[in-house]
């Protein structure tokens, strides 16, 4: 079935099967979407344990509500909306953690060609620089409001287009662009020393 966009939903068959009670179809959806949703939740919460808990809750809710999914949007938009709303609610409830421990860099990032190219121009002491960069960026992200962080996570980190973000958040595309512009300005001011 076509979603409102007119684009066919690639998950339509799996969703139909899951709505009829096929648990294996739902499992496939979980396997497909858990890495993406993990990224979304992790970059909003900056905590792995919280991410794991929220991610489980998101899929548990999706499982309970899958029969109410009417294909007015794609399944992707629907589950992203659930994940975003649940994470924002979680963040409201959670107290700001003092001195929150930021996760270590994954080994993959240190071997990333793009990353090496970007950082080697600035500083010869690559290892120290990588760690510092990571910390600074994470700290800068934490200064953003939850709504601004959500937009930055979806657009800059996950590469979701403006129109899709607007649908997920239930706001206009203009609001998305405006939040993004403001967040970029704030992040640039936070990372001011890094650019020099």
């Amino acid at each position, binding site marked *: 079935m076509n979603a409102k966009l007119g684009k066919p939903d690639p998950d339509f068959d799996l969703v139909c099967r899951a709505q009829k009670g096929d648990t294996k179809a739902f499992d496939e959806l979980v396997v497909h979407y858990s890495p993406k949703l993990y*990224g979304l939740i992790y970059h909003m919460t900056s905590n*792995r344990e919280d991410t794991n808990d929220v991610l489980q809750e998101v899929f548990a809710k999706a499982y*309970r509500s899958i029969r109410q999914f009417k294909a007015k949007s794609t399944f992707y938009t629907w589950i992203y909306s659930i994940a975003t709303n649940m994470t924002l609610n979680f963040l409201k409830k959670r107290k700001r953690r003092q001195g929150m421990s930021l996760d270590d860099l994954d080994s993959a*990032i240190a071997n990333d060609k793009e990353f090496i190219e*970007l950082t080697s121009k600035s500083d010869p002491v690559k290892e120290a620089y990588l760690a510092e960069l990571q910390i600074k960026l994470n700290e800068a992200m934490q200064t953003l409001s939850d709504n601004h962080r959500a937009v930055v996570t979806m657009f*800059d980190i996950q590469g979701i287009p403006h129109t899709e973000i607007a649908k997920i958040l239930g706001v206009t595309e203009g609001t998305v662009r405006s939040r993004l512009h403001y967040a970029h300005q704030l992040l640039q001011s936070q990372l001011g020393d890094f650019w020099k």
Partner: protein
Amino acid sequence: MDNNEKLQKLLRLKNYERPGDEYFENFLGALKQRQREDALRQSALGRLKERVVEWYRDLGSLRWAVPAGSSAALLAGFWAVGGSSLTQNEPASANLQKNGSETRMFELRIPRTEDDTIKNPSFPPQGPVMPTNFGGFREL
């Protein structure tokens, strides 16, 4: 490369901050385990309540219509039950009295004895008579 581009490039690299494949391989099992535990913990009533709350939340803009519709249905139900029980259980005269309508019953007295004739000298009529609208006769 301006600062905005650098920033976007840096942010894109954060996408690499994710656990290894092992985590996602185990995630499905952990999710199912949690769902089983939740199901055991929750009573049937609790699950029903949760589903009703979720259904209500998902109604969106139609949410206001539920209490209004329920009230209307409840009122209609009361009216229907109350109305039907009244008509079934109470005699018709009770309804008439409630409505304020009264029907007066008049006893029709027909003289059967000689005394009656004396008391009412015009009966039987002596002169010519004509029928009335009420089924009797009037003396002309």
